[in-house]
């Protein structure tokens, strides 16, 4: 045996790459029997996964035809939040760097997009950029730049200390957003969201399809692109280095992982996701006051990651959808529980119940299923895989 990479004299199947276009055989009923590494490393490496994801995407595409617009708006916002949650999961779940500053990066992205797309002659700062992919990308890029500036802190701090320092970001950001009225419109006022036009189709305003339907599809496409990119990062050298830093940072260094470089990459990528999320969150909500980018939003993102499943992309999406639906779930409560009021002046009211839900859900998941919604999915999958045996 030789550890050189040139030893091609072993069994043909272990030579792996570049051995002709022969498509390896899949055996029916043996989904986890791989006959080459390419199959094993594939994005969706078993037939059930491929079909399942295909069905899920198809179902998501058809959802706008089946649901009311107000529910669709919530789900659309959930898709956008999922992008941000994936970003936080890359940083906190994969790389193990706890950040309470995610709302700050979301805010930077939101205002970058709003300013770029804004009316140059309007009341607020605007540059009149109409090309939607450009301002989404720019929102991500500016947020990522802020991430680059913050990252050196993470190379010196970890755990709780890093969390407290990133908390400071939210406070600084909250102040800047509130005071820079030309950019943000000022507290409690806000500025209108940019109105995206994609390939000549105005996404805002009703046409053949309603605004909510069009936005939902648009958000879905962006989410899929971002989610696939995140999965690719997670399964690559970069994702492995993140996990190494999370699990044992001393050993990671000894293995040749440059800690400061990979923490920088983690912050940059995570902030990019936050920025993209922010730019679309603005569109999804129509208008935004700067007070929205507060600690509560950061905590919501952490809740999404914890409830969905730490260090999973699909978990982050599930968590984000659940958190996005919470106001609606809380809103339905007065129908079932007579003591919960829908009026903000009575107590307990649905808004208080909603906030309590975050805490309850986080505690419940940490106690009973630390792997989150993704863990519940794993249990269901294991149950059916081993059916009818329960062990």
């Amino acid at each position, binding site marked *: 045996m030789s550890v050189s990479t040139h030893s091609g004299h072993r069994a043909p199947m272990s030579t792996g790459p570049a051995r002709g276009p022969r498509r390896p055989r899949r055996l029916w009923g043996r989904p986890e029997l791989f006959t080459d590494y390419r199959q094993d490393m594939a994005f969706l490496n078993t037939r059930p996964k491929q079909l399942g994801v295909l069905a899920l995407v198809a179902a998501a595409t058809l959802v706008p035809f089946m649901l009311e617009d107000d529910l669709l708006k919530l789900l659309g916002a959930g898709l956008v939040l999922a992008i941000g949650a994936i970003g936080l999961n890359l940083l906190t779940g994969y790389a193990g760097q706890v950040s309470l500053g995610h709302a700050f990066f979301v805010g930077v992205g939101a205002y970058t997009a709003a300013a770029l797309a804004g009316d140059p002659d309007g009341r607020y700062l605007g540059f009149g950029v109409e090309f939607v992919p450009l301002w989404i990308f720019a929102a991500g890029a500016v947020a990522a730049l802020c991430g680059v500036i913050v990252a050196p802190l993470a190379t010196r701090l970890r755990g709780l200390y890093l969390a407290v320092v990133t908390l400071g970001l939210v406070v600084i950001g909250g102040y800047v957003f509130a005071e820079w009225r030309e950019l943000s419109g000022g507290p409690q006022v806000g500025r209108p969201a940019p109105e995206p036009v994609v390939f000549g189709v105005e996404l805002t305003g009703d046409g053949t399809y309603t605004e909510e339907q069009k936005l939902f599809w648009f958000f879905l496409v962006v989410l899929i692109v971002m989610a696939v990119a995140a999965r*690719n990062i997670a399964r690559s050298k970069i994702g492995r280095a993140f*996990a190494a830093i999370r699990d*044992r940072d001393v050993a990671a260094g*000894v293995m040749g992982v440059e800690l400061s470089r990979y923490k920088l990459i983690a912050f940059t990528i995570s902030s990019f996701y936050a920025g993209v999320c922010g730019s679309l969150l603005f569109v999804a909500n129509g208008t935004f006051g700067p007070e929205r980018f507060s600690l509560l939003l950061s905590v919501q993102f952490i809740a999404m990651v914890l409830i969905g499943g730490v260090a999973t992309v699909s978990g982050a999406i599930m968590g984000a959808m659940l958190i996005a639906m919470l106001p609606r779930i809380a809103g339905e409560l007065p129908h079932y529980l007579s003591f919960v009021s829908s009026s903000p002046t009575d107590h307990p009211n649905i808004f208080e119940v909603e906030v309590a839900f975050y805490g309850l859900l986080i505690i419940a998941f940490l106690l009973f299923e630390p792997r989150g919604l993704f863990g519940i999915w794993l249990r269901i999958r294991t149950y059916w895989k081993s059916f009818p045996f329960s062990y």
Partner: protein
Amino acid sequence: MTAVLEVRDVSLRFGSVTAVDSVSFDVAEHELFAVIGPNGAGKTSIFNVLSGVYRPQQGSVSLAGESVLGLRPAQIAKRGLARTFQNIELFANLTVVDNLMLGRHQHVRYGPLAAIAWLGRARAEELRHRAVVEEIIDFLGLAAWRMLPVGMLPYGVQKRVELGRALAMEPRLLLLDEPVAGMNLEETEDMARFINDIRAELKIPMIMVEHDMGLVMDLADRVMVLDFGKPITTGVPADVQRNPDVVAAYLGGAVIEEATSEEVSS
């Protein structure tokens, strides 16, 4: 024979405690160099100095003719130093394959953008290095556990995975910190066979810290004995066993006269 590693006059102090006290030694190509000594003699501290985890106050360390003192652990790893740890330091949530792939981290060449695109360069590199990792898995007989998170594996297997992870780095010098600590006889003999195979087939020079004297005396080419951070003697195992200072370090000064080499090596 040229020296892979030259350590000259290295001293490491933590406050008033001198953990390593002007230690010098060389390791030649293809050599298995063992470091022994009672608990707290500074053996692991020397490993931490060599791999860049600690910075000594004085001395010089050069790896393949290049000074590595003061470099960060990742930079030293890039220059060809790999190590295992006394108390296993694996990435517990990752599978055996991923742990070994992390060993190949510095050899896998693509950046974040290629990773996002995946198809093309990133996938080709992953496939290439995966093949190498699978060879190491074969070599160490880890095939049965390759897709399991290492945190779930038994202790002896984890030790082997850690050795595999170090081998995956294709090091110029391999540091083994108590490779058979806590292992039963069978596992110890397995590990001894792997160490012999690494010498015979991969020809990687090694430094081994170990308390199992039988293993050290059987495998090592040369042995350095440390006590309270100071080197007592360095030489071939047979000479070291008979050295009265070594016997004193292990058994205490009063029993030098009665002590025999059998007692030291048992």
